[in-house]
């Protein structure tokens, strides 16, 4: 049974899910949505995701939305297949969860707003707010300082293995480095840079990048 993933393959939140599915070798089909045509705000999609956002998944009869809930589900469902993305003990799982929360609450909004102002709005022919972009960048600098400190103590955010906590950062950092001209935030920090090099060279992520460029 193929998992249907609703959303554009180039969008960050669907990529979070797709990266996880590829890590776990789960077959999927991307059902493309045209966000600029407002597909995600139309009545039939709102039945899948009442907040009108991507992604949503359909796995047989089972449906879910919210990318971080979806990755937690699949990482648990296929816990014994492929890399262990959750951690082993209850304590390890809690630390993975902690850094997933950090991504959601301390990292994501800053990256989202920065990318919105510097990349998305200009692509739509609108003016980005450069003052807001600067504020986000300054705050993100401080967050990356904390990541640098953390990653000097362990190879990955939650410990010595790649987990959902690292995976959740892949799409956002890609946007920063490749689209927003903010690569220096990563490259100027030795441990963050090494971490990004490692996680962005994982076969699953590279496969996703290839699929997204086709």
């Amino acid at each position: 049974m193929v998992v249907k993933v609703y959303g554009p393959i180039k969008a960050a939140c669907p990529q979070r899910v797709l990266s996880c599915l590829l890590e776990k070798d789960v077959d999927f089909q991307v059902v493309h949505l045209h966000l600029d045509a407002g597909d995600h705000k139309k009545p039939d999609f709102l039945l899948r995701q009442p907040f009108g956002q991507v992604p949503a998944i359909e796995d047989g009869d089972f449906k879910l939305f919210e990318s971080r809930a979806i990755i937690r589900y699949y990482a648990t469902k296929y816990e014994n297949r492929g890399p262990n993305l959750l951690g082993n003990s209850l304590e390890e799982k809690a630390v993975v969860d902690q850094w997933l929360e950090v991504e959601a609450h301390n990292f994501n909004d800053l990256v989202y707003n920065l990318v919105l102002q510097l990349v998305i709005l200009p692509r739509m022919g609108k003016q980005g707010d450069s003052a807001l972009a600067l504020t986000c960048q300054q705050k993100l600098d401080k967050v990356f300082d904390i990541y640098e400190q953390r990653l000097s103590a362990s190879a990955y955010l939650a410990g010595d293995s790649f987990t959902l906590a690292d995976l959740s950062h892949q799409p956002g950092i890609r946007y920063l480095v490749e689209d927003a001209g903010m690569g220096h935030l990563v490259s100027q920090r030795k441990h963050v840079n090494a971490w990004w090099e490692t996680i962005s060279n994982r076969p699953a992520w590279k496969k996703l990048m290839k699929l997204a460029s086709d």
Partner: protein
Amino acid sequence: MELKLYGAALSPCTSRVMTCLHEKEADFELVPVDLFAGEHKQLPFLAKNPFGQIPVLEDGDLSLFESRAISAYVAEKFKQTGDDLIRHQSFKEAAEVKVWMEVESQHYHPAISPIIFQFFASPLQGKAPDQAIIDDNTEKLGKVLDVYEDKLSRTKYLAGDFYSLADLFHLSFTYYFMKTPCAHLINDRPHVKAWWEDISSRPAFQKVASAMNFGEKGNL
């Protein structure tokens, strides 16, 4: 060994964790962190949470921050006690709980938190609440609550007909929200209102709510 929770009784994030600890009948010690003295932004606290935020939970050698991760850990560790907040025996119910935990995190919290900040924190900085920020966020929160109203007309609680961590996560910030002039956003929606009255009357939350008196006279 007893759990130690570093935080403040009037803080909604600390209260989120304490509500969960009470639901699970887990003994803990609340170690006060002096927010007004900026204790959370300095060492030694920064060594516990480099983001300089409360709460932090210490359980033997394990130290955790982020209130939702802490609560999920407590709910898992003590899953055999009290109500099953994470539906650990049903894989699909557990996934539904995770969806609505994310909804709280990604949709509800970003809209309600600035409103709380304007009414409770701005006055401390000598400023009047910024009506533009309040209006912007009440509009966003209204749309989120429309989705909740629809969902709660079909299931008793957010993730299904069972109380879960997803509902619990809403308690502490909503408690403060109900003290603002914007409380009608909840009260005007019958299913949301009934849900709020149900979840806020749970004994575990009542234990915590009485200490959530930020901004009340004589308390600063």
